[in-house]
């Protein structure tokens, strides 16, 4: 489990090339899924179109349970993209992990706190942007009469990012321990590791889906807090 990271400095910024690779892979997978799923669009949906429309309705449901559709409708694309991207990212690390020369290359991008916190901060940034855009500067600052709101901003972004990271990273660590350590400790260990690995992988799929759902739901909750008038 003591894998190194393929760090690389470029233009004064540190890049973890493994993250870069996995972000690219996850984005490609999401894009291809969505792109190929919406090729043969018809009034009577078939095959992948049904699945895509189900995602659309699912996100619509999440938004509708948090805010008025008139204000929430514009966040649908964001919600769908976030949901699919985080779900795919969570799934990527499940079947295997690839390390080369003691450096971990293939993993879930969401098993890195930097990535999840980036997404969280991006979401929080969006909430501020839409708050100013839809309620004006005056309405935006009115929300800060209560000083606890400041604290909320930090805790929101931290919990949003770290929750996702913690769940996925823990899942990968345990998978790594089961498949990497226990399975190589002898024949008995290999056989003994099969069942818990299977169980844990199944559970991780569940956790990965739930975390993607929670991330999108909380995104919509924060957005509605900022955007709607009754808060």
């Amino acid at each position, binding site marked *: *489990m*003591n*894998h*190194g*990271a393929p*760090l*690389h400095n*470029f233009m004064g*910024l*540190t*890049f*973890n090339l*493994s*993250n*870069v690779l996995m*972000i*690219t892979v996850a*984005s490609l997978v*999401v*894009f291809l899924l*969505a*792109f190929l*799923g*919406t090729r043969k*669009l*018809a*009034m009577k949906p078939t095959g992948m*179109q049904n699945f*895509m*429309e189900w995602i*659309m309705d699912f996100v619509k449901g999440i938004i509708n349970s948090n805010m008025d559709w008139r204000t929430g409708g514009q966040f*649908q*694309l*964001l919600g*769908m*993209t976030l949901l699919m*991207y985080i779900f795919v990212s969570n799934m990527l690390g499940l079947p295997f992990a690839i390390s080369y020369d003691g450096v*971990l290359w293939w*993993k879930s*991008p969401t*098993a*890195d*706190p*930097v*990535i999840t*916190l*980036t*997404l969280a901060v*991006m979401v929080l940034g969006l909430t501020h942007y839409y708050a100013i855009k839809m309620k004006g500067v005056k309405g935006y600052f009115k929300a800060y009469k209560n000083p606890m709101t400041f604290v909320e901003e930090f805790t929101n972004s931290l919990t949003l990012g770290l929750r996702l*990271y913690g769940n996925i*990273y823990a899942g990968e*660590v345990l998978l790594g321990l089961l498949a990497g350590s226990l399975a190589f400790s002898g024949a008995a260990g290999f056989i003994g590791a099969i069942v818990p690995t299977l169980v844990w992988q199944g559970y991780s799929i569940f956790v990965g889906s739930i975390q993607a759902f929670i991330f999108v739901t909380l995104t919509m909750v924060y957005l509605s807090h900022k955007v709607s008038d009754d808060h």
Partner: protein
Amino acid sequence: MLTSSLVLGSTSQGFNGGDMLYQLVVFIILLALLKKFAWGPLMGIMTQREEHVANEIKAAEASRQEALNYLEEQREIVKQSRTEAGQLIENAKLQGEAQRLDIVNQARIEADRVKESAKREIVQEKEKAITALREQVASLSVLIATKVIEKELSEADQEQLINDYIQEAGEGK
């Protein structure tokens, strides 16, 4: 060493802002691409379907209303024609009755007329016959008178003669 790596993950060394930047940029690109190539068309077709369904419902409602209107109209027409037919039959009956009375009356008048004319004719003929008889009788009387004057006749002869003439007049007529 194991615990520290568990806590902070695989990238515990340094602050990798590059990843953040990369993640942010890639996500925004992904969002834009998906909006253009996937969600946009998908949303379009879904809205289109919604509109289609709404239109179909509206059309169905309209045609249902139309059918109801037609039904009402047809019902009205049937009712109207029924009363019309009843009226026609009633009229025909009345007319037939009137015609019957008319014909009977006319026949009666005609019969009366014929009877009257026959009566008149009979009377005329009778008059004519009487006149003729009267003339005959006059001429006969003259004739008898001349015969009497011409020759002296016996009473029996005279009687015979008158009877002969009467016989003659009856045959001559």
